């Protein structure tokens, strides 16, 4: 294979493309779409980040401004966790619009993460979400197909192919050349996206954890995806008798892989692995908590026994004589029990969701679009795992907060005050409130994100290799007429 010939053919393909007039309006539209999605992604990121950090601040200020009071009151006063947006979310919003953004954290009660964009939406969100990633994943394949569907077949139809072959070019060189030409075109379209993102990230991202490796790998993934698409286009164009057939085949591939398969596979997942309703979920937890020991039941055997053993250990006859506040001790125990039970069930639920998602994740093996979609979300910090991670962080913080307040109660509230938390006599100094650190959402690490999507990454690489192999296979089989 001669390099010069390959480059010559690539250059020729490239120049031919720019000679057709249709490319200019097409490029303008694409560029307009990209700019619009970049703009909305950017402003949405800015606005939402500002809103959330504003309210995180407000909530914190309100927390710190509390006067001296009984710590259990503070445990119920609680605080909020707001999910921070990862800077790359302006590129790919992933499932962010469908996950809640704010959760109220208080003692004894795991609240739901509320106010997702979807719950505030009018139903239009179901048409899909506008983002740069969406344009790259769904619109660009069509563009590449359009630019390349006739690359080889048109030459065959008008007889140029025979001439090139008789002039000494080999099939391999022709296919390589055309593929390179198309790839270069595709990557040319990717470049402005990269530059736009670079601009935004330098302006906004700062030194957020893992930003640059994520950005780099994202570029790599989309680069591979576009190369794969170019190879598929050339392969279909080579193996189809007529340009028309090539185009129809490519459009069918697009419909199947981009529109039909993703939605049906997710629907199948939900169909086969039904998840419990909220009432069911909560009542099972409630029942288990009651069995384990209900701190709200005055005659609960578990807590009765606990009391007896504590009294025994300290050699006293009533809780008022204990060296610590017994009410705080009971609540700490109750919190521990119920949290373990709740988290077990939550994990189970998350496992069911993961199973539901697994079918569509597995289709990444047969559907490179899915592989790219998964990778893109994971790298942008907007996938399911990143969300679960936020949920876990919030719950962990909630638990720490509740236990810290219980500790304060055990230590500083008079043992004589067994129940009740009102009034201004049994209180703890307000300096304790600001000592409890604020909730801080840490982003999911880059390494874990890549690890979770290893299957997608491998499948994408394999697809590229298979496409290279198929093109070289075709070059031995292809016919010029």
């Amino acid at each position, binding site marked *: 294979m001669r390099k010069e010939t390959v480059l010559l053919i690539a250059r020729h393909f490239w120049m031919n493309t720019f000679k057709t007039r249709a490319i200019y309006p097409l490029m303008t539209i694409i560029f307009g*779409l990209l700019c619009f999605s970049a703009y*909305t992604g950017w402003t*949405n990121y800015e606005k*939402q980040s500002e*809103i*959330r950090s504003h*309210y995180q601040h407000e*909530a914190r200020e*309100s927390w710190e401004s509390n006067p001296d*009071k009984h710590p259990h*009151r503070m445990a119920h*006063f609680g605080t*909020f966790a*707001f999910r921070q947006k990862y800077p790359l979310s302006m590129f790919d919003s*992933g*499932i962010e*619009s*469908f996950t809640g*953004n*704010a959760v*109220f954290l208080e003692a004894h009660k795991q609240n*739901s993460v*509320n*106010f*997702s964009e*979807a*719950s*505030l*939406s*009018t*139903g*239009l969100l*179901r*048409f*899909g979400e*506008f983002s740069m990633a969406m344009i790259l994943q769904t*619109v660009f394949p*069509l563009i590449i197909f*359009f630019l390349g569907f006739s690359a080889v077949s048109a030459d065959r139809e008008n007889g140029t192919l025979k001439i090139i072959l008789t002039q000494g070019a080999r099939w391999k060189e022709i296919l390589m050349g055309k593929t390179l030409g198309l790839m270069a075109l595709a990557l040319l379209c990717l470049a402005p996206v990269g530059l736009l993102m670079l601009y935004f990230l330098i302006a906004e991202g700062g030194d957020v954890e893992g930003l640059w490796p994520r950005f780099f790998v994202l570029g790599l993934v989309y680069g591979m995806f576009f190369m794969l698409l170019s190879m598929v286009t050339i392969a279909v164009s080579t193996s189809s008798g007529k340009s*028309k057939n090539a185009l*129809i085949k490519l459009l069918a591939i697009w419909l199947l892989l981009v529109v039909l398969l993703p*939605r*049906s596979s*997710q*629907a199948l997942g*939900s*169909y086969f692995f*039904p998840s419990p*309703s909220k*009432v069911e*979920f909560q*009542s099972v937890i409630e029942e288990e908590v009651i069995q384990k020991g209900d701190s709200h*039941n005055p005659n609960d055997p578990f807590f009765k026994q606990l009391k007896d053993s504590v009294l025994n250990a300290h050699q006293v006859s009533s809780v008022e004589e204990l060296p610590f506040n017994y009410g705080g001790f009971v609540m700490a125990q109750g919190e521990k029990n119920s949290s373990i039970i709740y988290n077990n069930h939550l994990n189970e*639920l998350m496992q*069911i*969701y993961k199973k*539901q*998602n697994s079918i569509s994740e597995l289709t990444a093996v047969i559907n490179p679009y899915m592989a790219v979609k998964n990778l893109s979300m994971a790298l942008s910090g907007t996938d*399911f795992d990143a969300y679960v991670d936020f949920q876990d962080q919030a719950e962990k913080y909630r638990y720490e907060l509740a236990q810290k307040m219980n500790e304060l109660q055990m230590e500083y509230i008079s043992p004589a005050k067994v129940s009740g938390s*009102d009034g201004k006599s049994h209180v703890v100094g307000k300096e304790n409130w600001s000592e409890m650190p604020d909730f801080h959402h840490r982003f999911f690490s880059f390494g874990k994100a890549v690890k979770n999507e290893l299957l997608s990454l491998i499948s994408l690489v394999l697809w590229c290799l298979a496409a290279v192999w198929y093109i070289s296979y075709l070059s031995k089989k292809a016919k010029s007429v």
Partner: protein
Amino acid sequence: MYRLMFKQFFRSNVVILCLLLVSVLGMTGILIGKQFLDRQERATEQVTIYQQEHIERNVSFHQEEFGLLMYYLKFALINKPEKMAGLSIGQSDVNPAIQHVTIRNLEGQKYDTDLVNPSSLQSGNLDLGFVIIYLLPLLIIVFTFNLLSEEKEVGTWQLVSIQSRSKLKYLLAKLSVRVLVILALFVLLLTAAKLILGIPFDAALFAFFLLGFCYIIFWFTVCFLVVVFQKNSSLNALTMLSLWLVLAILLPAGINSYVSNRYPVPEALATMIEQRDGYHKKWDSDKRETMADFYAHYPQFEEYGMPVDDEEEFTWLWYYAMQQMGDDEAREESDAMREKLELRGQVSRSIAWAIPTMHVQLAFNKLAGTGSTSHLEFLDKTNEFHEKLRLYFYPKIFDNALVLEENWEKFKPEFIVKENVVEWFRLLLPVIICSGLLLFLTFLKLSLSKQKGEW
């Protein structure tokens, strides 16, 4: 002639394959709708059983204090989906259909979400509505992109122009075969859905049918307009698919992102903080002030009197007055949020007038009672339900009535009553106007072509 046209149409394997694929997806859509309805049904049953057990248990624990008991007791209000909801699940997978509330501060409870898998939400429901809105147009495209061009490419068009009296009539006849097949498929799927989901035959179902009918006709007019430009098959396929992409994905997604960017809802988060501070901070403020605010809201309870001084011990009267303040102080933000959501809906609906895909999606949701408006209504009904419970229990708590004298049996989950009036003009007019406009353009193009001798 007509029979031959049908025969010719069904001879293609692609046609059979596509019809089969869409039918299978349509049936899947119906089953998914069925699963959705069953799930809601089950949740309703569970909440009924749960509420009874929950009340019984708590009543047995907390017989001495009515106020303490009411701290725990939860009551369910159910927005039972119409059978139609199985056709177009809409927003009802995001928005909970059951509100499960205590008589405490409502603003802290009523926005609680259901348990849902965000990934499933993202990929969207594959319900019959989706099949109609997204897939039927694709089928129409597959059936019509080579309506004329194929004849030209194979060379039969010459024959047709010589032999038939009117080329247009021939083309329309060919088109009508496809229209009939698609309509038959649509009617078949809808009938299957009616039977499987058990939808009653009422105005809403008929409206759903008519709207789907108009929508199908709309797509045929789109495709026919492309066809009369007499380009080759490839270009037709590409043009039609691009139109589909723009109408079914890009425009709605773009408009959604415009609306959500233009009207962000920070009020949601503000409400959340306000309701907490409104209630919790009352533990430290002057009791008499709180009571005064409470009596200003409910003058009918003034007879229960003021606490003598701030040091007076804990009373449930004071406790629920504090809870009330959570709602009262978040009222402004909460109303602002509601207005914002209403505004979002209005803006989307008015833009949707010009874009049939969006209009049909929103209209399907409205007919099925699964749109955002019906959820806002449900939230309003939740307010009423909660208020009713409060006003019923407040005097009992304040008097510390005997817990066991209350007939707890009667507290069963309640269902909201919905009235669904079909606004025929608003429903059908946008799609009819769009189709009419396209038809007009088609005939304009045809007469232009005739003048130039290209037809």
